């Protein structure tokens, strides 16, 4: 009963907020609706018992990706009239995309109705995972045994992407002065000041 009610609550909020992402006039509102959609999708994941995926969804998408989205969108100075002016021009392209997406959805559901797809078989040597194992352990056991090379390849691709992004955007600026933390920390009072026992009536030699 509670599961059913919460499923419908989460599912309807996901769909409604996903629709609001498109219909919201203000791009900042769109991003915020997207965050609501992510968050409720995580709720759905918890309902099917995939709590690890749910937490990852919140940490990665809501906590990091969407914050950066919001960061960028908030700083843009967007002219809404100009945005709407391009509507007629882009309608054919948009319609085409929508038709392709609907066709894929229909195809996917139709194919699924014909029977589940068998992709690969259970790994040799990997024991089937029982329902009592926490799914963080289940994911780890699979990821670091059967799929370890794919997993490491994914890591390598991300590393290359990160290095690439840094190489493309990093510019060594000339003429700016940086801070040398170590020399500042090592600086002692003796380096900059001295005590003088000065007789009165005479100036100080600097």
């Amino acid at each position, binding site marked *: 009963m509670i599961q059913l009610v919460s499923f419908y609550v989460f599912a309807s909020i996901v769909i409604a907020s996903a629709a609001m992402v498109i219909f919201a006039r203000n791009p900042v509102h769109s991003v915020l609706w997207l965050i609501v959609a992510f968050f409720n999708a995580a709720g759905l994941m918890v309902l099917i018992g995939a*709590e690890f995926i749910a*937490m990852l969804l919140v940490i990665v998408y809501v*906590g990091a990706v969407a914050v950066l989205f919001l960061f960028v969108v*908030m700083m843009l100075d967007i002219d809404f009239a100009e945005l709407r002016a391009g509507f007629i021009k882009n309608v054919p392209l948009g319609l085409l995309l929508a038709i392709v997406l609907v066709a894929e959805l229909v195809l996917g559901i139709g194919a699924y109705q014909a029977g589940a797809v068998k992709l690969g078989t259970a790994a040799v040597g990997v024991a089937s995972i029982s329902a009592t194992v926490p*799914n963080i352990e289940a994911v780890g056991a699979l990821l670091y045994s059967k799929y370890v090379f794919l997993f490491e390849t994914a890591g390598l691709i991300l590393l290359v992407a990160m290095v690439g992004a840094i190489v493309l955007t990093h510019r060594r600026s000339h003429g700016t002065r940086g*801070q040398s933390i170590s020399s500042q920390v090592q600086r002692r009072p003796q380096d900059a000041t001295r005590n003088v026992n000065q007789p009165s009536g005479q100036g100080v030699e600097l």
Partner: protein
Amino acid sequence: MTSFFQNLGMNYEAAWFTATIAGILLIALPLMLAVALIIYAERKLWAAFALRRGPNVVGPFGILQSFADGLKVFLQETIIPSASNRGLFLIAPIITFTVALMAWAVIPFADGVVLSNINVGLLYILAISSLGVYGVVIAGWASNSKYPFYSAMRAAAQMISYEVSIGFILICVVLWAGTFNVGGIIEGQRSHVFGFINAYALNPLLFPIAVMFLISSMAETARAPFDLTEAESELVAGYQTEYSSMAFALFWLGEYANVLLMCALNAILFWGGYLPPVDWAPLYVVPGIIWFFAKILLMFFIFAWVKATVPRYRYDQLMRLGWKVFLPISLFWVFLVSGYLMFTGHFA
């Protein structure tokens, strides 16, 4: 608690529902009271550090000062700037406040006394604390004012930066405990060091990251010396500039609930949570909740001490500390800890 309501004649689902609601109220209401008192305690501490008296007028020793302040803001007029984004402007403090309460769901107050004992408790805390930034960012943007906006940008960058190293620090602890369950992490600390000390922090390998976690948690809650989001000399009052009355109070309460949460996390991850400091039978006579609160208060004292004595960081120094110091060290420490555990056959 579910079985208690079942004994009253409810069926399981109704009993579970009532028990959960009761549990939430049992955590949230005392937490609000604790926040009010902790604000008073902190003001008294700062006063002591500065050789002042602090609040001493309302009630005995001024202990009702926070409640008087609460009543004051409650009676004030809520001012909403006409150029602001009205809906988001009002939602922002509610987000901050709610998120600050949500993470307490997985905190065990004593052995088995926890609202929701989930397998991924620590990930849940990380997920919820990463939501905290939205309240600040939305407030800064919806105010439609320059200083709050600068503050929101700073907050977003600051919290994301320190979450990265906090993530690595948590991985070290999780490696040692072998579980993401918060209660499991506390139980893993039972007689951990030299066979009798119940704390990860006194493990020589984990002590440096315990210190790093304390500093990172100050940065994560935007407390001094990292309170650049509300640096009054640069940004007026930061993201709260346009806020007044209850909306402002919600920010305030949420901020302190977050600080208490971070103190609790420090106590749980590195100082043994509800366990007594050493594994000695007579100490177990004292209930676990007392030890837990004592540890939270000790952590809070350190937070207040730092705020009263350390000057504010400059923004580029803050970023340098996060990305160039904490991130490499914590990454190295993940290798070190996992290497040590593999070498000594911890996982065998």
